[in-house]
């Protein structure tokens, strides 16, 4: 019941929006009223179009996120734990992670065509960095007493990583996973807007060009909902990873 308070703010925002719209204070065609957005959402859902497009974008986002996160984790472990790798690689990573993925879309299109694989590559590219940087930061934060302990127990390098470095880094990695999830979703959509005519991103453009701004907003607002659902699933899944629960900030996050 107390969690319902979280709906207060959105409800107020929607009511205000509807109000300015119906009083004509906001005369722009490209900002439709919430009521219109709702009815167009219902139509899109009924036609099945919503589901198809969402499924496409979801596949691209999750594929990119999973690929990027795994690569980011491995990269982070390498750079965080192997000193020479950091010395002879970190600056390159700093350069790479600032490159705007969007300007690579045409090039990736040459290599992979306008396909979901292209979207996955673009989404993965942005998902790598938060995870890599957080992993580096996390594994280096292993408390000195724990470092001593791991050494006296004579643990293998792998055991040190699994039992000390990763759990220490976990809270930061969890946050990074959540960040890379949203980044992957946004970039999958961007890739659809400029590169691959499919999914939510293309639907946005298409609906707008077909003079249906309400339907376009349906997709934009749907994206946020999709994000919340994905995030909820992520946080929920993490409950089964030992130690990650506290890291994820508990169940309250899921709302």
């Amino acid at each position: 019941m107390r969690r319902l308070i979280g709906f207060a703010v959105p409800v107020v925002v929607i009511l205000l929006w509807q109000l300015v719209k119906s009083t004509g204070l906001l005369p722009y065609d490209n900002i439709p009223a919430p009521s219109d957005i709702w009815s167009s959402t219902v139509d899109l859902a009924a036609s099945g179009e919503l589901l198809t497009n969402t499924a496409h974008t979801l596949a691209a986002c999750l594929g990119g996120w999973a690929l990027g996160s795994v690569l980011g984790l491995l990269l982070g472990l390498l750079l965080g734990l192997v000193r020479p790798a950091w010395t002879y690689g970190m600056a390159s990573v700093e350069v790479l992670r600032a490159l705007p993925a969007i300007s690579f879309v045409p090039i990736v299109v040459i290599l992979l065509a306008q396909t979901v694989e292209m979207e996955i590559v673009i989404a993965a590219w942005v998902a790598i960095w938060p995870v890599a940087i957080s992993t580096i930061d996390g594994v280096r934060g292993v408390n000195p007493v724990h470092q001593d302990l791991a050494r006296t127990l004579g643990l293998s390098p792998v055991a040190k990583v699994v039992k000390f470095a990763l759990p220490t880094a976990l809270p930061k990695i969890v946050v990074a996973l959540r960040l890379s999830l949203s980044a992957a979703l946004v970039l999958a959509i961007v890739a659809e807007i400029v590169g691959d005519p499919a999914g939510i991103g293309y639907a946005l453009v298409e609906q707008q060009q077909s003079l249906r701004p309400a339907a376009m907003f349906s997709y934009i607002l749907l994206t946020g909902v999709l994000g919340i659902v994905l995030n909820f699933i992520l946080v929920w899944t993490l409950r089964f990873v030992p130690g990650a629960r506290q890291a994820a900030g508990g169940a309250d996050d899921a709302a």
Partner: protein
Amino acid sequence: MPRRTRKSGVAPLRGLLPLALVLVLWQVIGDSSSTFFPPPAAWFSQTWELTSGGALVEGLLATLETFVLSLLAATVLGAVLGLLIGHVPLAERLLGPILEYFRFLPGVALVPLAVLLVGYTESMKLYVVVFGALWPVLLQVRQSAKSADVVLSDVASTLRLGKFAAFRKIHLPAIVPGLLLGVKIAAPLTLVLVLVVEISTQVSGLGKLMETAQQNFQSGQVYGLVVVVGLVALVINMLVSGIEGFLLRYRPQN
């Protein structure tokens, strides 16, 4: 005592070696007549053309200005919101869901909306960029605030520090490492977002140059500008790492 790794530190420039190798390789085996994959020498010559009219410097300055302002705004806003929802349960319940929602909205799709409401101004760029760059700081700060040792809160309350003093002396320093991690993630992201906004509105900046080059099929220039962006990112990162080293100077060094 070699066993402790440095917790922070500026990445040495030797780290550019792998990238340099790739570029050299590209130059050697690349096809100089390729339209989309020209070798690095062509990047340089094509990009050099941009310096003649001052276009490159002008674009760089415009991008940097938006970047600096956006990163500052994103850091402050992210830290404030992160602390608020990390420490105040009511704020978390009230704002948590809507923030979580906003986090996933595709900022690029909102550019037209921002333009409509704010216009083709620098502040429009700022709003859009901050909207997208705020999250790493917010989430990391919130995480740090939540996981701060309870004993520290006990110290604050038994010393009867006022709310403000407790915040300034205990809660704020305790989130500094998390805040810095957030900024480290946010800084390149901010740069990317500035470029994306510039690319899609073509108001000014390196993004505008990049998009123009792309429309002109001057791939060499696109790559050259990408290199410029990478160098900017490297400098920014060194600054952030330097600040981190200074703020966390209390930590063990070895």
